[in-house]
């Protein structure tokens, strides 16, 4: 055991953990909107819209995240026309490509979580709203969405942890996140176990924090 290496690599790895957290929070932020949008589309009565949303979540849940990142980062740059559009400013940066891939991926899982939450809302709640003369729009925004969010919290907590582990793939497109820096230190010092212990502990600590925040929110929004 090389304890000096463990201590000297700790600040570098902690700095990289900030990158991981930034990637995670941005992709969760965009992913939540995508997920909500596609969950609503899934509940649409039009079969074309419904199947489009289903296809989206099926494709993103059925392929590895690595393929998605590579298609977005390496693949899209190949289209000549695409490079001349204003989108290219965003897509030429590995940072934004990674966030877009993560957001689309987590959006697909989130849409499934939210859809099942919407479908399991007790009809009594909606009927109660209707009998009080509340308009359909307000029932949806003020009753259905908050109840669905509460019901999907445990599953969404798992999704956040899975996404945190997913951000490690950013290191494959040259980003120096926690895994990227850990790999760099391992390949320069050839001390895999020490670095794994430090980087792994940081990841475990983040998992622990997320787990407890979700538990706290679950208790806070418990209405039963």
């Amino acid at each position, binding site marked *: 055991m090389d304890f000096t290496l463990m201590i000297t690599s700790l600040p570098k790895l902690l700095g990289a953990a900030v990158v991981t957290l930034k990637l995670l929070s941005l992709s969760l932020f965009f992913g939540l909107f995508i997920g909500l949008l596609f969950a609503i589309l899934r509940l649409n009565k039009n079969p074309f819209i419904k199947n489009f949303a289903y296809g989206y979540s099926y494709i993103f849940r059925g*392929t*590895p995240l690595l393929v998605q990142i*590579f298609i977005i980062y390496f693949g899209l740059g190949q289209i000549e026309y695409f490079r001349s559009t204003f989108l290219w400013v965003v897509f030429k940066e590995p940072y934004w490509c990674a966030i877009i891939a993560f957001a689309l991926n987590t959006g697909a899982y989130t849409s499934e979580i939210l859809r099942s939450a919407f479908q399991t809302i007790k009809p009594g709640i909606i009927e109660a709203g209707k009998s009080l003369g509340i308009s359909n729009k307000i029932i949806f925004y003020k009753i259905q969405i908050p109840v669905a969010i509460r019901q999907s919290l445990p599953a969404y907590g798992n999704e956040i942890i899975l996404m945190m582990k997913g951000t*490690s793939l950013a290191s494959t497109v040259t980003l120096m996140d926690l895994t990227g820096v850990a*790999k760099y230190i391992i390949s320069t010092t050839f001390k895999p176990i020490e670095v794994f212990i430090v980087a792994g502990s940081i*990841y475990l600590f983040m998992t622990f924090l997320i787990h407890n925040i979700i538990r706290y929110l679950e208790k806070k929004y418990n209405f039963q």
Partner: protein
Amino acid sequence: MELLAFGKTGWGDELFYATLMTIAVSITALLIGFLFSLIFTPLKLSNNKFFNLIANSYTTVIRGVPELLVIYLFFFGGSGAIMYVASIFGYLEYIEINAFITGSFAIGIISGAYSTEVFRGAIQSIDKGQFEAAKVLGIKRNVQFFKIIMPQMLRLAIPNLSNVWQITLKDTSLISVTGLVEIMRQSYIAAGSTRDPLLFYSVAALIYLMLTFLSMKLINRLEIKYSRGF
């Protein structure tokens, strides 16, 4: 399209063999994972606090740390660990382990943590009366496990095991960083030499979709088979 042709001019046959490699790694990893869960599920369910601690730290660490980091640990640390063990027995030559073995071991350990949780949940949700009834009837412990607990447990476990299989299958794409030529690595090579990444990564995505689709169909059949009588 000729880029995807079989034979010397296209990448079709290479991608086909890479697909077989992905399937082989996934199945090996799943089986290694089952071996791990065979060890850790009893430890999780035992009344001994120390055994519980070992099994809980295994599943917590593996499920809380990114797969890629575990793969790097095995990729960079695997041959060092084997060489260390060999040096105890007096063998000092350099030993290189093959990418297939390190890869399937790394993914197997990850998949084992997930399947341990699945088996634990399935066994715990079997009615206590089943264990007691078997005991009252004087059935031996191993017969009790294989003839009474396992058939009921499998019915409950198969839907969740299908998730574990999907996770394992998708995780094998990460082994490409160690140089094992599976779907991702082959697409990477093909994309590099033809300068057509969009095509090859899209094909890779399609192959993965096909694999997940086909395995879902197969697992649904198994589910029907094991839930007969319910």
